[in-house]
């Protein structure tokens, strides 16, 4: 007798594949937002599974801050090659050069907020009606209320107080010209689920997630990688540490943690004993209590 129930990872996988297929069926021109981070890598892997033996029926879109870990870009190009997919790049540098946005100033300046404009411009220029993201509800309290299919008005804005109710698995992607949706297939996954899944499926991820020696600076309670973009204070000192990153974003604000975990299994083990949320190492979320909610309203990922 076989068991007729799914374990939690199979059920999460099945749900995510269902969401991806709904996106393909309900929208004309979707893209996967691909950051090179583990969540968007997992979403891409799920899309590969959802449409096999056909190719993923939509392009990948990368919002490039210009402040990248070089490893991320190499990894991205590799995946695109392997999938035979189309890549759309929205460049924050271009947005700055075109005068759409102005670079932040000061020591803690980042290009994080600037991404919003670049993202929304790229969505508009490419007539994208659904951008699929790797957002998870467990990441942050503003995300806890997100839908699988999340409506954005014609300014690309999210209105958390006026969302469409989402019942059973009946998703409503109806929208007017100029509006778009965000879809979040792994809404119900936790960081731990993502690692367990990467482990189970043997998904390759950028080397940055594994413990490695790197030049870093201690800033706002985490190890910020040294890079050509980093402006050092006088009292700050560049040191060599064995670190790994829990999330990958703009290189100027993504803090690493000291770790010896150099395999997916060791990472999963480390994460399961972890006492800090993964966003605890992102200085962009430390600016205020509602930092994420404010960014999301404006159209952030």
């Amino acid at each position, binding site marked *: 007798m076989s*068991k007729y129930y799914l374990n939690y990872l199979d059920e999460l996988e099945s749900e995510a594949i269902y969401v991806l*297929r709904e996106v393909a069926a309900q929208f004309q021109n979707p893209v996967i937002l691909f950051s090179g981070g583990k969540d968007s890598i997992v979403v891409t892997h799920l899309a590969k599974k959802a449409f096999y033996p*056909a190719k993923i029926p939509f392009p990948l879109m990368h919002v490039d801050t210009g402040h990248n870990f070089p490893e991320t870009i190499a990894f991205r190009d590799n995946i695109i090659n392997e999938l035979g997919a189309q890549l759309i790049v929205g460049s924050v540098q271009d947005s700055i050069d075109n005068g759409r946005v102005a670079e932040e100033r000061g020591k803690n300046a980042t290009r994080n907020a600037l991404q919003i404009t670049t993202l929304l411009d790229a969505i508009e220029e490419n007539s994208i009606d659904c951008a699929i993201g790797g957002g998870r*509800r467990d990441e942050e309290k503003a995300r806890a209320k997100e839908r699988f299919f999340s409506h954005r008005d014609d300014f690309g804005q999210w209105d958390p107080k006026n969302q469409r109710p989402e019942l059973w*698995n009946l998703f409503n992607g*109806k929208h*007017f010209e100029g509006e778009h949706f965000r879809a979040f297939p792994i809404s119900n996954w*936790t960081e731990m689920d993502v690692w367990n899944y990467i482990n189970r499926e043997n998904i390759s991820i950028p080397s940055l997630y594994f413990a490695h020696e790197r030049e870093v600076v201690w800033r706002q309670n985490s190890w910020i990688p040294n890079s050509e973009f980093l402006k050092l204070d006088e009292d700050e000192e560049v040191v060599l540490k064995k670190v790994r990153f829990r999330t990958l974003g703009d290189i100027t604000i993504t803090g690493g943690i000291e770790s010896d975990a150099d395999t997916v299994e060791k990472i999963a083990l480390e994460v399961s004993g972890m006492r800090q949320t993964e966003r605890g190492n992102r200085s962009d979320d430390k600016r205020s209590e509602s930092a994420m909610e404010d960014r999301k309203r404006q159209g952030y990922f």
Partner: protein
Amino acid sequence: MLDNNQLLRFTTAGSVDDGKSTLIGRLLYDSKSIFEDQLAAIEKTSKKKGHDGVDLALFTDGLRDEREQGITIDVAYRYFTTPKRKFIIADTPGHIQYTRNMVTGASTANAAIILVDARHGVIEQTKRHSFIASLLQIPHIIVCINKMDLVDFSEAAYNEVIEQFEEFSSKLLVKDVRFIPLSALNGDNVVNRSDNMEWYQGAPLLHTLETLHISSDINKIDARFPVQTVLRPQSESHRDYRGYAGRIASGVLRVGDEVTAMPSGFTSSIKSIHSFTTDLKEAYAPMSVSITLNDDIDISRGDMIVRTNNQPEASQDLEVMLCWLNNDEAKPRAKYLIRHTSNEEKAMIKEVVYKIDIETLDRNFEDKSLKMNDICRVKIRTTKPLMVDSYRDNRSTGSIILVDDMTNETVAAGMIV
């Protein structure tokens, strides 16, 4: 976590101050699911608000602030894991939007926690929450009798609540009801067994959640496969491949099964079932798979593949328990889009038969309006037949939503009678 660990989704309901936030906080805290930085934030706020110790209720904070400001409140999802299961909590606070929120949270839940304040016993709200849980056919209801510390952990108080509950719940369709006496504030019978209630023989809440038998809650008899999308790779290696992609809504499908495509009625048999590159002999709900058939028949999104000897009803006239979710009242005989599995048609609400008075659970045959949070029995006519089962038999193929095509909003959710 072990490989055969299941996922359990539950909702929490209770009226304001019954201790719902405290209970969720306690579950997360005692199961070690709260991170240090989150705890530090709660400690900071607790101090700011002048509490002694940590106020665990603050963990469900974002929504709480909204409530205090009287803003429309929404469902929030929370996650925790134990060595036995992964849990998803659909936290549905709120007063005004209560019905809408709870219906939303309940739609995917395996279990509902209904809180009762031991001092007050079963009140109107308890009945309302239980009614919605039964309407949405949540298979397991756990009545948590909270604040037992305030009634001296009295067995009599506990028994009285059970008696009150059973008196009215006999009219409801709930399969499995359990009662747990607890104190969310002090942690009695939440994660750890209470030393203060030796008379209680049952399990604490967490253990109950970890061991509820949920695998038989999904309909495993009626095989239903709504087609989401058709896969046609047209590549060298798969030139003639035509696969139907979807999530099995209920039942089991096996290679070789005689099947019928609805609504066309064409028959064929299953040639292969696969999940990515893995070929399967059989697949069951809620698996996402792709299926190929032995005959080339015309099937597209919205169609349903079923076993030939077990077919749903194809009907244009539906009797539905409808919950209205929109600020705008339904217009008489207005047309809507109806979404059912992967299918979409036009539909008209032909008649409101009665409205349920959510306070008394009586039927009102006079008031025929459909306003926000109303639950009514209605007759719906669709332009083309839908392949439906009753919601009682099948939560997937028995549920619908209505979309207003002027605003694109989801205005109602319905359960087919």
